[in-house]
């Protein structure tokens, strides 16, 4: 790939990485969120604090972990704590600025489904892995970023199941715990960026990646997506960003290839 050309997945990862700042305490999901969070750490935000649910706090992996509990995370962390501690003291304790998640499906309020597709909960057409850490990350972190490929199958009008909630207004009618942390949701896709409207909490299209039309994004969205009054355009990836991201992926492939041959 030429130096100044990039793929849709690369600009998605880079656009997501740019949202992290030095000092942001980020609770990181595996996969695309982990790639974006580490790209931020390796480029403009060396002081970002990455927390993984396996208990690694301040992890600085040189290669991307394949699982949420890879040894690389423990070895490069400031400290490693137990799983109950990470969720109780660090997440529920209100110490996380940004929860960075992936999702199978989201709706217009940033609710997330990672449980079942089609059928019923008891008898699903497709059973997905389930909740993991997401339900509490989604409600205890001050802000949520979700990274996923843009399509009508993933950005849907109605979720088959709400695994982790998006914005919920505090109400006296709810017979259960009330949301505390979450104030803002950002969704970064391979077409652009959606952000929650402070008044309605609905996700609106605020940024388009270069060369992507609003119509294309609306056509790939399962609900009637609203457009911001003055949508911005994502600055094209810099050579430095692309170099760092490709290096990270190359190191990761080489390391996992070596790890795979152990024994």
């Amino acid at each position, binding site marked *: 790939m030429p130096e100044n050309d990039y793929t849709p997945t690369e600009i998605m990862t880079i656009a997501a990485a740019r949202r992290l700042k030095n000092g942001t305490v980020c609770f990181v999901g*595996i*996969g695309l969120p982990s790639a974006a969070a580490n790209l931020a750490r390796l480029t403009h935000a060396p002081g970002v604090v990455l927390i993984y*649910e*396996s*208990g*690694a706090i301040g992890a600085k992996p040189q290669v991307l*972990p*394949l*699982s*949420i*509990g*890879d*040894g690389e*995370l*423990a070895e490069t962390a400031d400290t*490693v704590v*137990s*799983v*109950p501690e990470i*969720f*109780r003291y660090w*997440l*529920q304790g209100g110490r996380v600025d940004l929860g960075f998640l992936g999702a199978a499906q989201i709706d217009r309020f940033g*609710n997330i489904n990672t*449980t079942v597709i089609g059928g019923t*909960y*008891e*008898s*699903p*057409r*497709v*059973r*997905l*892995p*389930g*909740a*993991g*850490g*997401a*339900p*509490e990350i989604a*409600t*205890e972190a001050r802000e949520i970023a979700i990274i996923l490929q843009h399509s009508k199958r993933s950005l849907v009008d109605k979720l088959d199941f*709400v*695994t*982790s*909630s*998006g914005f*919920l207004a505090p109400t006296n009618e709810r*017979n*259960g*715990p*009330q*949301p505390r942390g979450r104030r803002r949701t950002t969704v970064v896709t391979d077409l652009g960026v959606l952000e929650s409207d402070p008044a309605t909490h609905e996700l609106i299209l605020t940024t388009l990646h270069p060369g992507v039309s609003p119509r294309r994004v609306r056509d790939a969205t399962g609900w009637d997506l609203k457009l911001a009054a003055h949508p911005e355009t994502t600055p094209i990836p810099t050579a430095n960003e692309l170099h760092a991201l490709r290096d990270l992926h190359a190191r990761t492939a080489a390391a*996992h290839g070596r*790890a*795979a*041959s*152990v*024994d």
Partner: protein
Amino acid sequence: MGVVASLREAVQTFLRDGQAIALEGFTHLIPYAAGHEVIRQERRDLTLVRMTPDLIYDQMIGMGCASRLIFSWGGNPGVGSLHRFRDAIQSGWPKPLAIEEHSHADMAARYQAGASGLPFAVTRGYVGSDLPAHNNKIRSITCPFTGEVLTATPALNPDVTIVHAQKADRHGNVLIYGIIGIQKEAALAAKKVIVTVEEIVDNLHAPLNSCVLPSWVVDCVCEVPGGAQPSYAHGYYQRDNAFCHAWDGISKNRQRFLAWMDQHILSTSDFAEYRRSISADVGASQRA
């Protein structure tokens, strides 16, 4: 049986059909050897408890050991789906599998309550989630001091917890390091505790504040080198990512899965023989 025994003896002695058992290890130190031994000894009607069911419970579910699963994330990390887990839930094969589904934060809290001798766990969990509507163990409780409504779930107290660790000494004191996950809570919550270890040593040389299970909370220690493979043991070996990818193909088809389990697990007598069996298989496929 002394505190140090073979894994076969430990499973024969402590595991009964119909029990609730937890094999823990959060992506690290997953007790694969112990899971295989449960399959070999054909335990049935088990309630399997584990935050991340992973390949080991995929194998146990597919071989018909389980009737119920208590869990919070059922995938093949970094690869995708667990096909035997999915087949059991979607099609009831090889038998129906009842599920009790949670979030990680809550599963961890349930083990903590179990280890703490409390009847239930409290979290600020599942706000806005559909999970409580499908799991009647997830209920709410009002704080007597603030009036805040919180989530309550019952303590987890497995009949048997099995974990894998790096080292034990000859008295049965156990040292765990690296990603320590939920192993201490799962062990202290259980009625009986079996620990498989990479090696038994004269002296643990455990640094201060280490995660140590003292011998008097451990019922049995079994030396099983490599016993967490294909997961990893920090300081001993890395995760076998190639196997985790290969499992996707092995497990997708029922007949291929059964043939693989028969060849490598049912037809081998212990974990050492299993390891020789799969490395011979890898060698054969590389030569082919």
